[in-house]
């Protein structure tokens, strides 16, 4: 039985299969509309995350399956002091697969160790959020046609931004990737990440002004400065509006540059950019559903390949 704890749990070859399946689901939704009939997904969300939870639920419903679960710890047995190990053993009796979000880092791994059903890490604190990374990779691959030979700008909170660290780890497995890290001094990419890139011989540059490098990018990944990652409210207020992507800055970019954002967006992308064909963050959310559909089927062993379980 397989679980998903980190985006690196799958080889690049396995990811290709997963992306192919997700793209096939996008093009032939009706073919997969009943593949999970009779199966149940438990969404165990110990902290609120409407978007991720609804994306998982939409994915399972699209596959003809059903969903059950809880959406914050106060409405679960965790409020009574139940351990993650005990909870997952009980959930294993009720559902066929589980997506777990937990504020404590490593909680889904503890669950996976005790579970008799596949567990998907739906975000554990500031640690991993693999389905976001897989969403990002699928979006890039689907809209750019490749995951290699790209100059990628990552902009905003690069210090605490879990999604950007995870995306970098996933992208360094592909050839000829170059990174531009665009952030204020206080939110620079941590040294352990830049050290890792140096060891692997992967090119990167650190810049402060987005305008200085936007013209060289194939992809711009914007992030939000998140209040919950700061211990100090003053620092958060000072840095939260450091970057704003507007039409003026976008006019400097290549015609085929893609703008991605894990969402929710607050102030970092002006709404005037939304109608630009390069702004693909809402399509990215749609790809998030397809990749979760592909993942659920893959972990349940229902891939829909010829001779497989598809009816």
């Amino acid at each position, binding site marked *: 039985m397989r679980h998903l704890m980190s985006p690196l749990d799958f080889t690049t070859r396995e990811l290709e299969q997963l992306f192919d399946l997700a793209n096939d689901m996008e093009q032939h939704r009706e073919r997969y509309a009943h593949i999970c009939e009779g199966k149940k997904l438990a969404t165990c969300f110990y902290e609120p995350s409407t978007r991720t939870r609804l994306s998982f639920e939409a994915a399972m419903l699209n596959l003809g399956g059903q969903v059950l679960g809880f959406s914050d710890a106060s409405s679960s047995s965790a409020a009574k002091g139940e*351990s*993650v*190990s005990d909870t997952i053993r009980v959930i294993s009796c009720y559902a066929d697969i589980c997506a777990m979000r*937990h*504020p*404590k*880092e*490593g*909680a889904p*791994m*503890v669950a996976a160790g005790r579970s008799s059903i596949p567990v998907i890490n739906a975000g*554990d*604190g*500031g*640690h991993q959020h693999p389905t976001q990374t897989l969403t990002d990779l699928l979006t890039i691959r689907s809209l750019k046609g490749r995951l290699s030979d790209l100059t990628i700008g990552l902009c905003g909170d690069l210090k605490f931004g879990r999604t950007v660290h995870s995306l970098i780890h996933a992208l360094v497995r592909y050839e000829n990737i170059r990174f531009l890290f665009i952030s204020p001094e206080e939110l620079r990419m941590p040294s352990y990440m830049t050290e890792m890139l140096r060891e692997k011989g992967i090119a990167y540059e650190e810049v402060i002004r987005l305008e200085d490098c936007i013209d060289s990018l194939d992809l711009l990944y914007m992030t939000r400065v998140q209040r919950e990652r700061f211990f100090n409210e003053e620092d958060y207020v000072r840095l939260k509006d450091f970057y704003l992507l507007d039409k003026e800055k976008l006019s400097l970019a290549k015609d085929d540059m893609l703008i991605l954002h894990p969402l929710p967006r607050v102030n970092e992308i002006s709404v005037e950019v939304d109608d630009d064909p390069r702004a693909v963050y809402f399509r990215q959310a749609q790809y998030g559903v397809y990749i979760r559909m592909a993942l659920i089927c893959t972990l349940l062993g229902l891939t829909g390949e010829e001779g497989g379980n598809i009816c």
Partner: protein
Amino acid sequence: MLNVGKIEEGFVLDHIKAGKSLSIYHHLQLDKLDCTVAIIKNARSSKMERKDIIKVECDVNMLNLDILGFIDHTITVNVIKDGKIVEKKQLSLPKEIKNVIRCKNPRCITSIEQGLPHIFVLTDPQKEVYRCKYCEEKCRQRW
């Protein structure tokens, strides 16, 4: 010159960094053994200038080499039989250690989950980096 008698059967941990012998004594739980233990601090050493030595008069199999390898894999383990060194055991960095150190990350699941062992995994043998199995927090100080 201080004289500590030879042991007939047991093991001698040599080349311990000066001042660290008591920490090793506790980590190896030598206090729980019902045998003779001699701790020599700040002995003169040609290699290290100063070193600590621990002599233990009991079967070497009682020793957890993984813990010792994790603490300091440069320590020399001499196995003694009939008052003579019969073997020098090579220590290596263990791939994984359980319940030797605790994860200090307050956001780690180990901070709240009952009965969960604290496991650290060797992620970079060259730099001797251990990380928590659950949250991947780096172990900052081995001992």
